[in-house]
């Protein structure tokens, strides 16, 4: 039995057992089952990955079951293992196993633990099905499967209206992307006559230059197919336009955000583009599209990240932005660099989220950074691990020497974009540099607001709640998180006023007498393990992902351009040093604004006025979509129902017919007078008519 079968299906079995067993099984058994299954999967995954890194491992496909055979369209359940899958396998199983473990601590007080762990394992199964897919339809199965798990986990605290709304939003917005994915699969089948990925990729280069009819116009075939498929990727990976669900998804428990909305599910789009890279290579226009969307997203999401107060939302926009990097890397042809960043990002972003979870845990479910401060002494391990994550995401390192994980992957992407030498590449490069500046700023802002300065805890409702009701833990899941930051554009002022009034009164009162506690060991172990990844993953694996001869590692699992690697090495020195420079500027700005002169950010926000408000309100996407799609949909529904179905079809259809019959009956009644002479008259008239008809 191939280990991949165990890796993929063990989490499913655990999910079914924990989910259906639920209360009967008990929380501990469910936790042991699911976590155990994930650790087994994880342990089995690493040898596969290292086998590919070391070289010598062969790609293989393990058939499972026939699925559909409909005329020429056939697709089966099968598990494909190649180097690209292997990268995803270790990312998914490792982060998932650690998140399972972490959740023992984080979800300890929750009454619904078996359900939570069942969902987590179900998600892992669906994600594994996605990355092991050998045909587009199974990929779509995993794609929607992770969507279901995401829906369930975002809505895990289903009593909260905000969580329910976020869950539906995530599913429906993803479905918009899936519409593109589905049409892309249909089109691919139409063109290639198959849904098998290897067969499509083999035939794709030959289709360059072909044209196809789509919606009444003729386009370049591969461009249409790739853009349709990429729309799916945009939905799942929260790219500009279809990103609105991701920040709201933070309604889910924090371990979920770490696993699904940072490390794995949202990277599925990047995986898809890399998996189908020979298709994209056949369409320069589609690649340009991917690069532009990626570049725009990394910039736009970073701007929002600079203004948010909710610790999880900052990291969510950061994720959105980092996914943009991965896409523009793919768009300029540096698929290896995209996968490398996916790999390192999984570790440091999961780390940041779990660290944020640890802070939230310590701060009694307060998520607003305005009520944090001075936590580094209270929760030192969380502080150090999050610092490691921040060093990784901001890309700290010395060019050509050594650095944290993000340093290797992010620099590789920026150099590749510049080295591509195209206009699109230039655009992506500059967007990436600007985003890197902001990444550094908002990441350090997060660290400074949370761990440095004076305590500002007393003003927090959650802390007040904790102080006044020590036993109120069981009700925590019904609190609305992050609502404070929702509808107040002038937050910079308000926040700092609150903070200032707090320590103007008395520096010691800032704590309100609250004592944050470091998280339990089950939560700290995942943090420490992920810190290792955040520190070393780049250094150790850079040769496997992005260097000359990396083609051996990929074995054709994605398109690898040797030339691009050369171009990366030959970029001017200023290009090599620019990420480091902007990182330093971002750090200093954050230090100045949030440690040295805390009046400064509010003043800047006031100066910027409407611009700040626009960015703070997330570029108004939610408002726009609400008035362009949601409101009209409900309005149209009512109009079609009341005016269409009831006012027109029923009125002139069955009800109208009934009216005619009823009126007709009234007239007929009058004719039935009962007088013999009137009947005789009618008879006579009838007779005359009949006779005249015959003798005509």
């Amino acid at each position, binding site marked *: 039995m191939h280990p991949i079968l165990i890796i993929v299906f063990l989490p499913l079995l655990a999910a079914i057992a924990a989910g259906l067993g639920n209360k009967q099984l008990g929380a501990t058994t469910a936790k042991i089952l699911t976590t155990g299954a994930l650790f087994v999967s994880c342990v089995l995954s690493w040898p596969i990955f290292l086998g590919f890194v070391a070289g010598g491992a062969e790609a293989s496909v393990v058939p499972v079951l026939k699925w559909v055979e409909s005329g020429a369209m056939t697709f089966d359940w099968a598990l494909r293992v190649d180097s690209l899958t292997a990268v995803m396998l270790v990312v998914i199983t490792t982060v998932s196993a650690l998140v399972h473990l972490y959740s023992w601590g984080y979800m300890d007080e929750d009454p619904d633990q078996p359900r939570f762990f069942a969902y987590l394992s179900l998600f892992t199964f669906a994600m594994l099905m996605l990355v092991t897919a050998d045909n587009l339809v199974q990929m779509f199965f995993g794609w929607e499967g992770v969507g279901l798990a995401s829906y369930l986990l975002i809505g895990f605290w289903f009593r909260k209206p905000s969580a329910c709304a976020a869950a539906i939003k995530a599913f429906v917005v993803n479905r918009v992307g899936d519409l593109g994915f*589905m*049409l892309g699969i249909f089109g691919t089948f139409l063109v290639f006559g198959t849904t098998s990925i290897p067969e499509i990729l083999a035939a794709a280069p030959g289709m360059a230059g*072909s044209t196809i009819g789509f919606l009444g116009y003729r386009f370049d075939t591969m461009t249409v197919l790739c853009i349709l498929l990429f729309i799916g990727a945009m939905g799942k990976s929260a790219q500009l336009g279809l990103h609105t669900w991701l920040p709201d998804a933070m309604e889910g428990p924090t371990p979920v955000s770490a696993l699904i909305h940072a490390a794995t599910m949202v990277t599925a789009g990047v995986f898809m583009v890399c998996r189908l890279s020979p298709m994209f290579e056949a369409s320069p226009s589609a690649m340009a599209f991917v690069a532009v969307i990626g570049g725009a997203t990394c910039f736009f999401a970073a701007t929002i990240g600079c203004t948010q107060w909710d610790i999880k939302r900052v990291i969510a926009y950061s994720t959105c932005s980092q996914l943009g990097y991965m896409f523009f890397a793919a768009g300029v042809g540096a698929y290896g660099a995209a996968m490398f960043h996916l790999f390192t990002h999984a570790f440091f972003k999961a780390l940041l989220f779990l660290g944020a979870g640890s802070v939230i845990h310590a701060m009694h479910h307060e998520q607003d950074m305005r009520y944090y401060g001075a936590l580094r002494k209270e929760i030192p391990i969380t502080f150090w691990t999050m610092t490691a994550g921040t060093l990784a995401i901001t890309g700290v390192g010395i060019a050509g020497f050594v650095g944290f994980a993000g340093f290797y992957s992010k620099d590789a992407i920026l150099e590749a974009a510049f080295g591509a030498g195209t206009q699109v590449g230039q655009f992506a490069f500059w967007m990436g540099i600007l985003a890197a500046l902001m990444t550094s700023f908002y990441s350090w802002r997060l660290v400074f607001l949370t761990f440095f300065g004076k305590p500002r805890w007393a003003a927090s409702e959650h802390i007040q709640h904790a102080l006044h009701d020590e036993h109120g833990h069981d009700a925590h899941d019904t609190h609305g998180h992050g609502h404070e930051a929702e509808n107040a554009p002038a937050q910079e002022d308000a926040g700092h006023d609150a903070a200032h009034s707090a320590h103007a009164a008395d520096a010691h009162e800032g704590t309100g007498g609250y004592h944050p506690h470091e998280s339990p060991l089950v939560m700290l172990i995942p943090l420490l393990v992920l810190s290792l990844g955040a520190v070393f993953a780049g250094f150790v694996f850079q040769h496997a992902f992005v260097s000359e001869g990396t083609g051996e590692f990929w074995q054709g699992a994605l398109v690898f351009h040797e030339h691009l690697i050369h171009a990366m090495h030959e970029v001017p020195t200023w290009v090599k040093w620019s990420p480091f420079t902007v990182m330093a500027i971002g750090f200093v700005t954050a230090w100045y604004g949030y440690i040295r002169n805390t009046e400064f950010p509010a003043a800047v926000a006031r100066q910027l006025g409407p611009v700040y408000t626009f960015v703070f309100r997330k570029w108004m996407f939610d408002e726009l979509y609400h008035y362009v799609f949601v409101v009209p949909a409900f309005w149209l529904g009512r109009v079609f129902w009341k005016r269409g179905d009831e006012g027109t079809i029923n009125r002139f259809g069955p009800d109208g017919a009934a009216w005619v019959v009823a009126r007709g009956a009234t007239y007929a009644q009058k004719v039935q007078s009962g007088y013999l002479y009137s009947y005789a008259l009618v008879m006579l008239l009838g007779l005359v008519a009949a006779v005249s008809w015959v003798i005509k």
Partner: protein
Amino acid sequence: MGGFPILSLMLLVPLVGAIACLFLDARPARTVALVATLIDFVLGVVLWANYDIGGAQWQFTERTEIFAGFSYALGIDGIALMLIMLSVFLMPICIGAGWTSINKRVGEYMAAFLLMEMLMIGVFAAQDLFLFYIFFEAGLIPMYLIIGIWGGDNRIYASYKFFLYTLLGSVLMLIAMLWMVNETGTTDIPTLMVTDFAPAAQTWLWLAFFASFAVKMPMWPVHTWLPDAHVQAPTAGSVILAGVLLKMGGYGFIRFSLPMFPEASAQFAWLIYALSMVAVVVTSLIALVQNDMKKLIAYSSVAHMAIVTVGVFAFNTQGLEGSMIMMLSHGLVSGALFLAVGVIYDRLHTREIDRYGGLSINMPHYALFFLLFTMASIGLPGTSGFVAEFLSLAGIYQVSTWVALICTTGIILGAAYMLYLYRRVAFGEQKHADAAAMGDLTLREYLMMIPLALAVLWMGIYPESFLAPMRADIQALDARIARAAPESDSKPTPGKPQAAVHTVSEVGHGATPAAPEGVH
């Protein structure tokens, strides 16, 4: 099976049961009905097990001449087999659904359902045109009674509307049938299926049949009887209405319209597409604003049936197989959804969505089943709904990208209204004390839900069991209508491999800007 008349037996068992029920008290009537439907289900399994895949097109045939060419002729192909299986599978569940909630005229109620079962099987098994017509139309009577007697407050209006709509179309179909028999001198359906009518005649015949099938389906804009009928019908009535009766329209298109009038079908394909596109968008939006659970699911049925019609008129294997699976899947899923509504209706006696909320808390198992059927309804891969939607839409994409695009928006709208429903029923706080006090599923309800859940998953994960018996028939149908198949609007040209190599290497070198080509 030799010459054993198993199809006749399947008609006879419910008929005998129905007559017996008329003379029995409530308790024995229920038992008799359940036993009769279970026997029929077992017979159905025997039928399926003995169906020779790849054998003769028409199997288990029986024929008795009656008079003037009219004969009692039965026989099934794979398509009919699957629809008969759906009917006999749903019937015991329907009997179970009315087990405790129907207390008035129980004997007559059970008799009506058993009669209904006999007529449904008859429709799918009939091989004689007039025998089909009799079964097809007689099916109205028990349904009319079920709605009119055991229905809700506004049952008279609903039952009359149901009857008026469906009868109107049928009259035209009867005239067309008489003309066809007069023209060809036979009432044998298999013979008629390979008869080539003159294209001019086909047009009128097609329209006459269309009038009947479009109402049964129901297609927009002759769908307005459906929401009322569903809302007023008792739970089991809704299950059988959505589960089987709506499938008669689709079956009619596949059995009559396509093979008998291929040219006319192609000629009117645009009409079908137009009505279906409108239906998908309009009825989905209407479903979004419903406050009545049954009405919401009824409107969603119209949208799903529109996917069936585009699939049927895609003129290719994927479209036809997809629409068949859609009919089976929708039979299971919408049946299950109506059942799920029935479960809570029995407890609270209201269909109003806002009266519920937070059911995940006090009815977790119910919420799980409801979630599964919701997901199947919106076509989540792994459930039957996905295979159905995917194949149908893949079929229509090969004809028209516009139609495919509009119809695929159904996956977005469907997700919106179903999840919105699920949220209001199962999620949120428990707002009403009476809704919060409702108990989880009873044993009887588990016994109805579990088979449906398993069937939905089976059809989603291994649909081969259902596709295999139909494959040869769909192929034969596809071959027959191929001559009239509409042209694809995609028409991809072959690639220019020379250019391809050139372009790839250039991107590889990163020497030239990505030149936009072909995108406008």
